[in-house]
């Protein structure tokens, strides 16, 4: 009887409707997953990572070292944010220094970018994760610019150089990138992790006890005096110069950075990370980071932490800065990829296992 009902002519319209509905749902699902159309998703940012990437390593800033430290609050930021980290005396910190390259075996003189990442754990189970770089602003005003830039600067196999037409097309769409190119040309390199100032670059909001929002960016300002790394010194530097230097400095004593909070004023562009705010903005030292010990990332620790900068404690909120929101998804994909490799036993060097056989 049931079968006859389905085969009858009256059933055609409902059957078609049901089919269209089911197919529609599947199509919307596929589109949402990024499988249909050429939607740029956060996964698109990892498309250029080679399949031969050493298993278990971060997909960017792969070469790094873990650190343990303490954040001591000055209490001066408590009126602007109810985050417990600003009111309590000290909080535990687990972090990571890295250089700005995808190759985990790169020489330290191969990039001018140095980074600090950390997770500060404070009372009420609050975590504050961040990832900071030594450049003062981002290359482009949005995240798509990152893909456009890496596509534009891809080495043309016939000329051995990037295609100038693609580069100028990119600079036309992202004129602000010129500021970054100039900075990278002129600003001195740092000759130590200890002397670099690390900037969060993206904007956040501090939320005070009355619920008021204050737009801020922050940086970690070193107590150690700045010292540049000249071209000549770099050329003769050992392979792990920066990491060796860090260990040697810590053998002699702890290293310190001030967490300097900078407040935006009306008219400052909150959601444009390519534009630094004017230098005369109000600054408050929120606290001091003390680092006493570094340890190899193969031991775990920082290796298994995703320093997703959108994981902020109560009392801090993320802004709509498009580079910040995109970083959340991109970091998640990088994290999933490398932790899967470690979890499924594919990682060797990344977890301190010596490769037993060279498979080539």
């Amino acid at each position: 009887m049931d079968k006859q009902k389905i085969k009858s002519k009256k059933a055609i319209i409902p059957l078609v409707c049901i089919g269209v509905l089911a197919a529609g749902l599947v199509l919307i699902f596929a589109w949402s997953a990024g499988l249909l159309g050429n939607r740029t998703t956060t996964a698109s940012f990892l498309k250029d990572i080679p399949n031969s990437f050493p298993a278990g390593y971060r997909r960017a800033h792969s070469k790094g070292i873990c650190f343990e430290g303490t954040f001591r609050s000055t209490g001066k930021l408590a009126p602007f944010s109810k985050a417990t980290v600003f009111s309590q005396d000290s909080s535990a910190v687990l972090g990571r220094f890295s250089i700005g390259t995808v190759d985990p075996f790169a020489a330290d003189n191969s990039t001018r970018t140095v980074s600090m990442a950390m997770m500060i754990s404070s009372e009420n189970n609050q975590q504050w994760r961040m990832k900071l770089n030594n450049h003062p602003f981002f290359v482009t005003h949005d995240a798509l610019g990152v893909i456009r830039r890496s596509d534009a600067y891809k080495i043309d196999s016939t000329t051995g150089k990037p295609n100038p037409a693609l580069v100028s097309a990119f600079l036309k769409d992202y004129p602000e990138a010129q500021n970054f190119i100039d900075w990278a040309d002129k600003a001195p390199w740092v000759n130590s992790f200890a002397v670099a100032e690390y900037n969060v670059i993206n904007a956040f909001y501090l939320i005070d006890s009355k619920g008021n929002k204050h737009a801020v960016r922050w940086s970690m300002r070193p107590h150690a005096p700045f010292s540049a790394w000249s071209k000549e010194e770099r050329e003769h530097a050992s392979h792990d110069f920066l990491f060796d230097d860090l260990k040697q400095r810590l053998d002699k004593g702890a290293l310190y950075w001030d967490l300097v909070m900078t407040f935006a004023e009306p008219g400052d562009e909150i959601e444009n990370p390519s534009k630094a705010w004017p230098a005369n903005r109000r600054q408050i030292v929120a606290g001091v980071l003390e680092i006493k010990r570094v340890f190899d990332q193969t031991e775990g620790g920082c290796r298994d932490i995703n320093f997703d900068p959108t994981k902020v404690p109560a009392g801090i909120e993320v802004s709509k800065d498009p580079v910040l929101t995109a970083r959340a998804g991109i970091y998640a994909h990088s994290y999933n990829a490398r932790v899967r490799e470690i979890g499924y036993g594919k990682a060797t060097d990344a977890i301190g296992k010596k490769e037993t056989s060279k498979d080539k």
Partner: protein
Amino acid sequence: MSQQKNLKSGSRIREWFKSVKIFKLRRRHINRSLPLNFNLTGRILHWLMATLILSTMFIGLGMMTSLSSRPWLIDLHIPIGVAILFLCILRFVNRIMNPIPALPSDMPKIEKKMAHFMHWVMYAFMFALPITGWGQLSAGGFQAKLSQNIILPSLIDQNPVLYAWLHDIHRGLAWSLFFIVVGHLSIALLHALVMKDGIFSSMTWGKDKIKKETKRPSA
């Protein structure tokens, strides 16, 4: 495997309830006649959970792809997942304590078996998805946050091996459940629009007659 286990534990729990005196009165009522609809609690839970499950699956896809919305999408995904876990347990208890409508007597036996089997498979998915989601957060060193200040305890310690497994299982289950839901919806609409046999209205407020069975369904 898990659904079989569920089935067994389901009937075992039902037996236990039957043995408890205070439920006896209720049981006599159960045996008298089978209802045309699932009970009100069951129907509310069904439609509420259907909405939550379908939305949180799309939220899940959104947070894994969107350039702009991941922070607030994940802040929604986690509390919805926890709500589904809580409601799923509630629904399970409601399901085993109350009679359900019989399937039409002229429905082929194999179809009835399939219907009951899928019924429990979906319960297993509704339970396993939030658990693996919560587990993967814990194994990855993340927090299961219901709000900025309400943070659930970790289910397990941070562990890359468990993170890898739980992350993949969570994703695999979610994709499977989506296709199960599409199938479930299509078959439900087939009963509503073509067969008109009372199966669809047993989950709504309609009173379509189901051709009565003499025996209670086994599951």
